[in-house]
């Protein structure tokens, strides 16, 4: 069990792309994911808006953070699938980060490692 490696992937994507990302991950057999509404900026920076005649800068734009734990073998495919399904080619599409995952545990049964995914 301990020998089977896992990756933890965090993707920051445009809010409108969540459904596409979700369905491609389902097709790949990813067995679960966690989604959070977040705010932030990258190279895109913020944007300026107008309220009652006064311009102001919104520094942090709304994004979706998708977190998923997968077997290491599947990780390149998952990263590629997220990239393909969330890309519009424009600035502000987001980023994908991959981490080594030390362990996992399913709370109900106590299973650990890949069996817990």
């Amino acid at each position, binding site marked *: 069990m301990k020998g089977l490696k896992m990756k933890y992937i965090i993707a920051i994507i445009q809010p409108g792309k969540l459904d596409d990302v979700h369905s491609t991950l389902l097709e790949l057999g990813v067995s679960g994911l966690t989604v959070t509404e977040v705010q932030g900026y990258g190279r895109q920076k913020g944007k300026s808006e*107008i*309220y*009652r*005649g*006064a311009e*102001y800068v919104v520094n942090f734009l709304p994004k979706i953070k998708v977190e998923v734990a997968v077997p290491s073998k599947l990780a390149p495919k998952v990263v590629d699938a997220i990239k393909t399904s969330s890309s519009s080619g424009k600035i502000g599409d987001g980023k994908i980060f991959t981490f080594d995952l030390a362990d996992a545990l399913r709370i109900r049964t106590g299973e650990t490692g890949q069996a817990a995914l």
Partner: protein
Amino acid sequence: MSNKLSKLLIVASAAVFVSSPALAQEVPGHGVFILNSLLFLIGGFLVMFMACGFCMLEAGLVRAKNTTMQLTKNVALFSLAAVGYYLIGYNLMYPLDTWAIDKVFSGVFPAVAVMEAVGVTPDKVDDLSYAATGSDFFFQLMFCAATASIVSGVLAERIKLWPFLAFTFMLTAVIYPLQASWKWGGGFLDAMGFLDFAGSTVVHSVGGWAALAGVLILGPRIGKYKDGRVVPMPGANLPLATLGTFILWLGWFGFNGGSQLAMGTVGDVADISRIFANTNAAAAGGALVALALTQVVYGKVDLTMVLNGALAGLVSITAEPLTPTLGVATLIGGVGGVIVVFAVPLLDKLKIDDVVGAIPVHLFAGIWGTLAVAFTNADASFGTQIIGIAIVGAFTLVASGVVWFVINSIVGIRVSEEDELAGLDSAELGMDSYPEFSR
């Protein structure tokens, strides 16, 4: 019961007579009294609901941390107006030709409002040719309360509750009724030919002047004007602000239509109908102009300005909703929309922080509407209208300024910096508007 039935029969027979112009001009029997009273009651409860409109508009345009306080102020000011107007205001406003100072100060003051006796008979009513005193009091009270509602939005998010209510009492018991007596109570403004049908000046600009006096003493919200820039503080709930605007729009039919003050002849009913249609046209004009102008000036439509535009259109037509054609009414309202789009940023340049845009809507469009009377009503002159606007404006600004100054000197009208940053909901009330949502 039989009394109610006979009233119904009279109304029914009145309807028959109204529809046949060959017969008498006025409805027979006590029809005039009954129909006029009915107009005041319907108009009155429509204007009453404007309190809800103001409340929702303001709740939508403040930030979430001040919502409960804004709701509290609105329900409190409306209730307090009922007491102030009963105790002092009504008889101060309607001296019925009993003046202590001729055409300036009521001689019936101070005296509480008194209605006719229970089950009064026609020979015992106060004025059989007009309407029930209860209906008149009810209708006029709602206008007084509307004036007070205008003030709360301007001063939102940083004024203390109790000092605000102390001012509200003075406004509804004394300041509003006194200046209203000069026009609607048959005072000197009325005598010199100043025209203000439903209150562009008497109600709306008075609310605006009172708020302006308050905001000059109160100052802007912390962080609103920083390093020479305007920092917008977007409202928390635009659906509520839009709902509030539509409610005000609806209530305005009672506000302007009821101000015909008579429904006993074909002419009166036709006039009320003209007023309804013109009132709606002006609101539409104000909204459309603000819609188009914000697109052109800022590159994007600003909903909050469109809402203000509709209200400015309504205020603009309020001084004369009867004589304009539908087209002219639309234009008069449209100018109100122009006023809003340019006056909102202008106030920000002057560092006058009006949270909901009530000063452009009620004060500036109120002045415009009062001037515009002279375009369609031959009885009005620009000179007299300007004099009326100036006298009411100077009086209200000074009187309100004195009251605000005194309250501020005694207890202070502004919350502490800490409380303002935390939000008035938790600081003053300890009650959030949506406790189960995290921010």
